[in-house]
């Protein structure tokens, strides 16, 4: 029932339709939330029926959303993925909490932000360099931090582009990944043992905003793959305690 997945060659009037769709997106950004279909059509001098179709298409893909009156449009969450996420340095107080944890454990301690629907390392451990940032952002399913992000999104499948295999431990099937993601959502902790680099593993817990419980960041420990598989009860308790202390500082 879905259209063919193969990229079809652009033909006929399709290039114009693509340009028009981008123009509609730009107009919504320029005019601000609440602009109506008629206003967009007038501003772009585009036929009304075409505008409505493009708007419905963009709403269907969730780049745009309809506001509750069903008349006005605004940019949807998914549109954030069109922009490069801006890395912001966390406040000094938050860095102090992360440094405190670094003083207590012999593992690498990394702090990542989940703004813009991507894993962005905002305070990587200088003594234990983490994996390539681009890799973490691109394949969220193989890192513990990335799995925290996925477990928070009902539509996580949309964020997993390709189940790339890095080591013999890498999860390579969607059903197995779904089971892992469900575990993360249930336990509130994500793990990964040697899935990105055979000898390394990671544990990560969410940092949630104190008011609404929104996922804002993830705090991760990285170390030898064999150690990550252990229960690590005290270590996890320590990790959670620091995540809780970070919550009011990052939200």
């Amino acid at each position: 029932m879905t259209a063919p997945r193969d990229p079809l060659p652009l033909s006929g009037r399709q290039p114009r339709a693509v340009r028009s769709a981008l123009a509609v997106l730009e107009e919504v950004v320029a005019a601000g939330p609440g602009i109506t279909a008629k206003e967009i059509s007038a501003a772009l001098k585009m036929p009304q029926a075409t505008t409505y179709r493009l708007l419905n298409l963009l709403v269907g893909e969730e780049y745009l959303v309809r506001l509750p009156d069903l008349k006005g449009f605004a940019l949807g969450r998914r549109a954030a993925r069109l922009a490069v996420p801006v890395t912001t340095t966390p406040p000094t107080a938050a860095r102090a909490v992360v440094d405190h944890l670094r003083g207590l454990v012999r593992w690498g301690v990394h702090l990542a932000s989940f703004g813009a629907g991507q894993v962005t390392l905002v305070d990587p451990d200088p003594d234990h360099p983490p994996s390539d940032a681009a890799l973490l952002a691109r394949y969220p399913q193989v890192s513990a931090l990335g799995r925290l992000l996925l477990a928070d999104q009902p539509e996580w499948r949309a964020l997993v582009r390709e189940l790339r295999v890095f080591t013999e431990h890498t999860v390579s099937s969607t059903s197995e990944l779904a089971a892992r993601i469900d575990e993360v959502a249930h336990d509130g902790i994500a793990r990964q043992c040697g899935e990105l680099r055979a000898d390394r593993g990671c544990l990560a817990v969410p940092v949630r905003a104190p008011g609404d419980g929104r996922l804002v960041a993830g705090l991760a420990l990285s170390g030898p793959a064999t150690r990550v598989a252990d229960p690590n009860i005290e270590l996890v308790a320590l990790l959670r305690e620091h995540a809780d202390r970070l919550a009011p500082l990052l939200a």
Partner: protein
Amino acid sequence: MRDRPVLPRLRERSPVHGLRRRGLAPLEVFAQSVSGAAPSAAMAATPAIVAASAGGGTVWSFVVATGLALLIASCVARFTRRMAATGGLYSLTAKGLNPGAAFASGAALLVGYGMLAAAALTGGATYLQALVARLGGPVSVWVPVGAVVVVGFAAGTLALRGVRLSARVVLLVELVSIVLMLTIFGLLLASPPAGPDLPQPSPGVGGIVAGVLPALAAFIGFEIATALGSETRRPFRTVPRAVTWTAAVSGLLCVFAAQTQVVGFASVPGGLAAQDAPVPVLAAAGGWPWLTPLLDLGLTMSFFACALATTNALARVLFSLARDGVAPRAFGRTHPRFATPHVAIAVVVPVLVVGLAATVAAGTALAPLLVFLLTVATGGFLVAYLLVCLAAPVFLRRIGELTWSAVAATAVIVPILLAALVAYVLASGRTPVVVVLAALAAAAVGWFVWARLRRPAEVASIGVYDETVAADVLGDPGRAA
């Protein structure tokens, strides 16, 4: 140009929160709609009923009915491309017409889904009994009663345990049953009984038109995807497609089945219309008597998948009415872990199952009971379809997105549905159906009057749907404002 009114503050959570938002895959939603329409059952049973009016023109009646179903689907899609509802057609109607019409649609849907669920259980029990008898099992009233109770409660449990699980069960069962049906009908079409074709009495245009109403009844339930809007991944794309494709697929299957049966009985006096159980007769004539138990199995499965899909929809209509504040508020509660409207399911399923089981145990014949339930359900759906088609252009005008094609679709379909409704009432003129419908309508009016008096504000703002919340919007305009 920037004198836009200040944006209303966006809600932090959807008014239909509690259901699992955006979780169902397109195929799972499509399967629910297909099961609701139960094309396998329609393939076996409906052509003979249509042939009673349309004779040799049976296939054309189905072609016309498919066109009508596609038109209804296009009206429904005007809404579902723009909003994700949980209450099915009534939530949509509320955005176009006044609260009274939305309420009428809600009541009609409760009748439609309730009766369709009961009919599906009855149908499943009927064919299960036939299958048991054919395999040498006992013929007793307890076989259908047991089937109704076991399947009814199993459907309730699955619906309770999560829409995802029940959607997958429905997908599997419906797929097997459609494959069985296609195999059976393919075999029958490949070798029609020998003998010269007898001249069929020409049904004329009138006959074909009269056959459209029973043919259209074969589609009821195809809109079930509209009740799963908030639970569907990418709902604005998936739900309209699911409804449209269900109409198209069901239509194709029915046309194919009708053609097979018309050709099969071309050499028999009276043709298809004279047949009581056309497919088994064709199977026996073709020298494949073993097809009949397979047919029974396929029909049983299709009916039970239909029961499951309709239970899901029925519970969600009730859930939405409760969230709207016009039904008891407890129905609007959701299970914390399974994220299903568990109170609505826990009340509706036992009432349906016990009521139906008692009726069957009292010795009511299954076949007339099935026809009765389906007829009442069709009445409910005709009303709901009529209202939603009427509401579509009004809704588009309200949000300033009216197009000529929307007006044209409504202008064509509404008079036809009105005529179908009149024909329906006339056709069931001297049967208990009219009495039951009148009683149900009176109950609905009584309910509406009570709601208007006791909860005027809730009635005035009827029509909750899964509206955009703060977290869906980039940059969060509501909070910033």
